[in-house]
Each structure stands twice: as structure tokens, then as C-alpha cells.
């Protein structure tokens, strides 16, 4: 009974979806075509927070919101780097996250595609020279493309991924022939 009275009192708690950023839709469509050609299936993304202030995470979460809804363009977040094609790394790499980040990178199947999101991931931003920080992401693992902004908007992130995929297609052709041996970290 409580449930029904609550439903009655609350009314409709959602609102009509406003039309999103048309630029984002356009980039999304381009991404969709590119992903389909490169992978023949959806792009699996693993997000790693290497020490971010969570500003970038807010924007990345926006990608899955009804406005951007990146799953319709064939991109989705996965729960393990073993399932991922691409790593999305945010924040300056803190000392605590250095080894976990490296291990995550090793766990991704080759060819590995790394996108560093935000100013911190690119240059350490305001945390530069902090005692707690090892350095930007490319000090720890090879980065394919960095997306600037503090934080970058969802559209910027989509655009960055699109540019990165171009490099990725070249990388894939070379790595398919020379798969580097991976030593397990003990």
C-alpha cells in the first residue's frame, strides 16, 4: 500500500529529454562507422582512475547518460581489462596507483589502445611536482592519445577517441605481426 501511495504522491519524476549536442551526435556516428570497420563489433572500454579528482569521471559518466548515450554508437564500459580493447585513464598517476595501472595495462589483450583523459593525465595539471604523484600517464604506460581539458566535455572525449582510432588502425597492422612478449609481474 505504501508503495502505491508513494507512486500517487510523487507523480512523474522524469522529464522530457532535451536535444543533445548535435556535434556529439555527428562524432558519434563517425565513431560508429569507424568502430564497425575496425572491430566488426562494439568497442570495449576499461576506465582507470589513476588518481583523478573525479571531475573527469563526472564527464565520462555523462557519456552513458541519455543525452550522449554512447552505447548506441557501439561503445561500452567493461568490468575487467581482460575484456577491453581500450584503456581510458584519468588523473595524474599517484604512487599508490602506479603498479595497479601498469598491471591493468598488462592485462589488456594486445594491441593495446590507451587514451589519457584530462589535463592531469596529460601533464599532471595542478598536481605537478606533488610528492604523491609519479607523473603523467605516459611516464607509466605508453599513451596513444591525450585529451586536454579540465575536465574535457563528453564531446571532447568522443572526438579524442575518434582521432585515436586512426592511430590505432595503423598500430593494429604492425602489432598483429609482432606481438610483444609479456612477462608476468611478480
Amino acid at each position, binding site marked *: 500500500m505504501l508503495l502505491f501511495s508513494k507512486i500517487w504522491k510523487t507523480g512523474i519524476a522524469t522529464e522530457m529529454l532535451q536535444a543533445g549536442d548535435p556535434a556529439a551526435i555527428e562524432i558519434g556516428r563517425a565513431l560508429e562507422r569507424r568502430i564497425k570497420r575496425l572491430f566488426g563489433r562494439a568497442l570495449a572500454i576499461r576506465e582507470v582512475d589513476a588518481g583523478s579528482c573525479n571531475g573527469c569521471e563526472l564527464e565520462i559518466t555523462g557519456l552513458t547518460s541519455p543525452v550522449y548515450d554512447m552505447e548506441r554508437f557501439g561503445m561500452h564500459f567493461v568490468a575487467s581489462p581482460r575484456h577491453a580493447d581500450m584503456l581510458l585513464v584519468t588523473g595524474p598517476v599517484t604512487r599508490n596507483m602506479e*603498479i595497479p595501472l601498469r*598491471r591493468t595495462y598488462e592485462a589488456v589483450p594486445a594491441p593495446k589502445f590507451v587514451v589519457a583523459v584530462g589535463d592531469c593525465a596529460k601533464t599532471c595539471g595542478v598536481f605537478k611536482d606533488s610528492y604523491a604523484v609519479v607523473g603523467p600517464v605516459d611516464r607509466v604506460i605508453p599513451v596513444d592519445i591525450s585529451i586536454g581539458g579540465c575536465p574535457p566535455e563528453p564531446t571532447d572525449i568522443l572526438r579524442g577517441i575518434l582521432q585515436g582510432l586512426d592511430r590505432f588502425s595503423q598500430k593494429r597492422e604492425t602489432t598483429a605481426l609482432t606481438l610483444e612478449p609479456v612477462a608476468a*609481474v611478480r
Partner: protein
Amino acid sequence: MAFGTFALIVMVVGYAGGACLSLLARSQRSARMLTALGAVVGCVGGLAAAVSVFATRVPVEAVLPNLVSAAGGVVIRVDLLGAFFLALVAAVSLPAAIYGTTYMAEYEDRCSMRVFGLMFNAFLLGMSLVPCAANIFTFVLAWELMAVSSYFLVMTESENADTRQAGLWYAAMTHLGLVLLLPMFFLMAGGSEATSFADLRTGAATLTAGTRNVVFLLALAAFGSKAGIVPLHVWLPRAHPAAPSHVSALMSGVMIKLGIYGLVRVMFDLMPSGPAWWGGLLLAVGSVSALLGVLYALVEHDLKRLLAYHSVENIGIILIGLGAGSILHGVGLRALATIGFAGALFHTLNHACFKGLLFLGAGSVVQQTHTRNMEEMGGLIKRMPHTALCFLVGSVAIAALPPLNGFASEWLIFQSLLAGTYISRPEIAVGFPIAVGMLALTSGLAAACFVKAFGISFLAMPRSDHAAHARECHWSMRAMMMVLAGSCVVLGLAAPLVIRGMNPIIDSVPGLSAGEPLPRSPQLWLMVPNGSAQVSPLLMAVLLGAIALAVLLAIHAGGLRVRRADTWGCGRISQTPRMEYTASAFAEPLRRVFAEVYQPTQDLSISVHPESRYFIQSITYTSHVVPWFEKAFYDPVTGGARALATQIRRLQAGSLHLYLLYVVAALVAALAFAWWSK
């Protein structure tokens, strides 16, 4: 002398000789060897007798009228149904006895091997004689020999309080069965002097419907308490873990099947063509047993208790087959009914094989890890690869996955239930689909349970020092497990041939027989007589093998390379066994779904730092699943018995005067009775 009679004599002499010789053995070690020697000779004799009955289709008979002639003497008659169960007893006892030779070595300094040898062989003799008995006296004698000797086998580790408790439960439940068994036979005899089964069969036709119903209910309860149907199953999860593992294998694999034998003998052979509700009751009891058995197995983390609960489940599945068959038989769909009966009998055989195998596997694991708690195992597949492989075969078979034997028999039982659609009666239209649903749920949960049992025990990293230092068990134990594992595979692949071989058994029993020649099914296909469904385990195996081969070839030909790396552990620096998935965690989602059934108790205690409650010093969480129906059914009974005993104890006050009064009162009462009856 006929070959069959000779084989029976070899069997009895083997078991009796094993019992006596091991009692007289000079050392503990030689007692172990003689125990196995007698058992092996007995098993070979039993198998030979069964084979001769199968080959000649002539029952083996032996009558010793002068042995306790007041009760009708000892009458032995091994017909086809008896031979089937005799073969089942012998076939599982043989590997179990050889396995026990090495397995019992660790018990040498804890208990007497001589007494164990006596009881073990007496147990095998009792089990072998039950399906051979052809009169009430012989049957009850063999039944009690089996019950009493197995009680002593359960009590092997009697210094353990849990074992004594288990022994008490077992003794109480098994004698409850006897208490119901005797009135059942007396009612069947109907006041006449008839004691042989042949007389009972002819006499049963003249019984009134009410008497027949009472006899049926008594038989269901008496044999059900041995077979372990819910709610009479309470002794299984207590007694099976307490006994040495090869004895558990025999009790779970074979002894409880003799409960099924008794039920089939009374319900379908001595009193055939009962009313429809008999079958309906079997079906209902079977469905409930199967579902509750697997549900309790799911939350059990003691490896042997888990297997014991699975026995309850499988007995339920067998009863479903018998119940469905009996209902179909009752409405005249006799050819279809044989599918249910064949499925039930085949599942009896299959369960004996894979449950025996699983208990032997569990025995090897327990011997090495010194614990029955799955949460302290792990990583055993690296340390005991052969045991792990055998246990895996048993797990796949009991989970009814093709192409092993569990699949074939459960498929037949499913088909017999689906055949209920041919009967247009409302109670069947409602009842059969519910039974199908419960059986399907049971099979699914059983598969989940064995993913847990195998995964937690054998995979990942060892969770305790004992598990880390486990070594592969003795070759003789492994060889016996492989024999049983091989039989699971062969029975699975050759299922259509086995079913063909079973048709004469079914035809020989009046209540099971189709009464018409069945259409000969093709060699490779299991088939429903009306042709509505068919499946071929062998072709399935070939297909699965081909798929596996194709995947392997694709990996090799595709140039894919194998990369060896650590298990993904969320990037943490060090991984310890404490971070592994546990059996409790695996079962937790299902425990929540079925919380209404389990009624778990939970206790969470958090101790905080005295300065601030934000600093937590320790968190203790305990949760138990206590079967509520055990409380509901048995607490009043045990409480009542206790209260009654306290009342009766007043009679024995220790006062001599009171006892003299009793004597005088008894005398006066006797005199008064004598005067009155004059």
C-alpha cells in the same frame, strides 16, 4: 549344481569368510587385506550369480527350510529384478572394498581393523541378500544384518561426539523403518500362514482396498526411511560424513537403493496395479525430496554432507520416475510408462556409480587435506590431478550433463513426465507440469552445486597448509576411482543398449510390465516408444568432441598465441587465498533467492575502539542454515520421547518395596485374567 547356485554359495562363503578371517587376523594390516579379499570373492560371486540370471532368464533358487523352520526357513530366489540390484551391490562394492584396503590404513591406530572387517563383510552380505530374499524371514534378517552392521561402520570413529550423535540418529531412523516394515508384512500376510513372497503375491489380490492402501503407506515410510526421502532423510547428512569414505560410498551408492528395491518389490511386484494416487504420492514425495535435497546441498560446505544431500535429491529423482511411470501405467499408457520405470531403474544404477565415485574422490581429498570443509581446500587439481579428473567426471555425471550417464537417465525421466500431456485429466494436467518444473529446477541447481563443489575444492590457490601440501593418493585408490569414472562414461555412451537390456527386467515385474512387446529402439538412440523424442548420447559425444577439436584447430591455425599471465586481481599488489571466491559467496545469491526455504540465522557483531566508534577493531559475521522442518518434525518427537521416558523412569524408583508391589500386582493381574478367561 547349477552355476547360479554355485555363484551364490561363493558369494556367501566369500563374505562370511572375509568376516571370520579378518576377525582372526594376526595384525591390523593383514586384517585389512583379508577384509578386502573376502569382499572381492563375495562380489565376484554376486556378479556371477546376477549374470547367470540375466543370461538364462531363469531365477536362481535355494531353500534351507530347516534353518529357523518356525519362520518358514531361509528362502533365496534371485529373479531378474533381484539380479539387477544384486549386480548393482556387487559392482559398486568391488571397487569400494579394494579402495578401502589402502584408505583404512590411517585408521589403524584408532580402531580395530578386525571388528571393522567383520562388520564390513557382514554389511556386504546383508546388502547382497536383501534382493535375493524370497520370504519375509529372510528379507527381514538380511535387512537387519545390513542395518546393524552399517551402524557399527558409521561408528568407526566413535571417540568423536559428532559420530556418536550421527550413530544415534541412524540407529533410530533405520529401526523406525523396521518398526513399520513388520506390520506391513503382517498386514500383507492377512492373518494367513503365508510367509513366502509368492504366497504374498497371490494373497495380496484378495486384500481389501483399505488394507492395500495401509500396506502401501507403510512400505513407503519404511523403505523411504532407508532410501532417505524427505522428511525421513535426516540420518543421511549425519551418518554419511561420519563413516569412512568407502563406507559412505556404499551406504549412499548402494544401501539406500535397497530402499528403492523394497518399494519396487512391494508396490509393483507383490501388489501390482494400485490406485492412481499411489503414483501421485510417489511423484509428489519425489519432487519435494529432489528439490529440498539439492537446496540444502547448495548451502552445505562440508564436502561429504553435500554429497549426502545429493543422495536425497537423486532418490527423489528416482521416485519421480517411478511415480510418473506408475500413473501412466494406471491409465493404460503402458509402453510410455516403461520409459519412466526404465529411467528410474537406470538412474538407480547410475547414481550408484557416480555417487560411489564422488564419495571415493571426497575420501581421497579428505585423507590428504584432513578436513571436510571445502573452504579449506583449493588448488587440488595441481596436486591431485587424477583424483580431480575422476571427481570432475562424477560431477558432470551427477549434474546430468551429456554425454554421461546421469543425462541419459534424467532425460528418460523427463520424457516420462512430458508424456503426461497424453492424459486428459485435470489433476495430471496440473501435477505433471509442476513436477517437470521442479525436476528442471533441481537439475539446474545440481549443476550449480557441483560447479561449487568442484571449483572451490579443486581450483584456484590452496586455502590451507594441508591443501597446499596435499599429494596424490595411493595408486590402488586412484585405479578404483577410474574404474567407476569409466563406468559412468560407458553407461552414458551405451545408454540405449543398457535400456534394451533392462526391458526384460521391467517385463518380469507385473506392475512394471508393458504387457506387450516394445518396439525395438535403434542401437544408438534413446527413444520414447511412440517416437515423440529421441536422443543419442554417443552422437552427442562425437559432436562435442568435434566442436572441441574444431576450436583447438582454429586456435592453432589462426596463429593465435597463448600468453601466460597472473590471474586478474583488480591490479592489487599481492594476491592471497583469502581473496578467492568462497563456497559461501558462491551460494549466497541462491541462498537469498530461497531465503524462505532456508530461514537462515544471521549474527553480526562489531567491536569498536573505546575512544571512537569510527575505529572498528573487529567484525564477526556468522550465519547458519538449520533445516527448519527438522525442528518442526523431530523436535516434538524427540521431546515427547524424552518426556515419556522421564515419566516411565518413576516406575524404577530403586525401592525394593515398590518392586515387590509390582510383583504382587502382576501376579494378582495374571490370576484375575486366568479366572476371567476361564
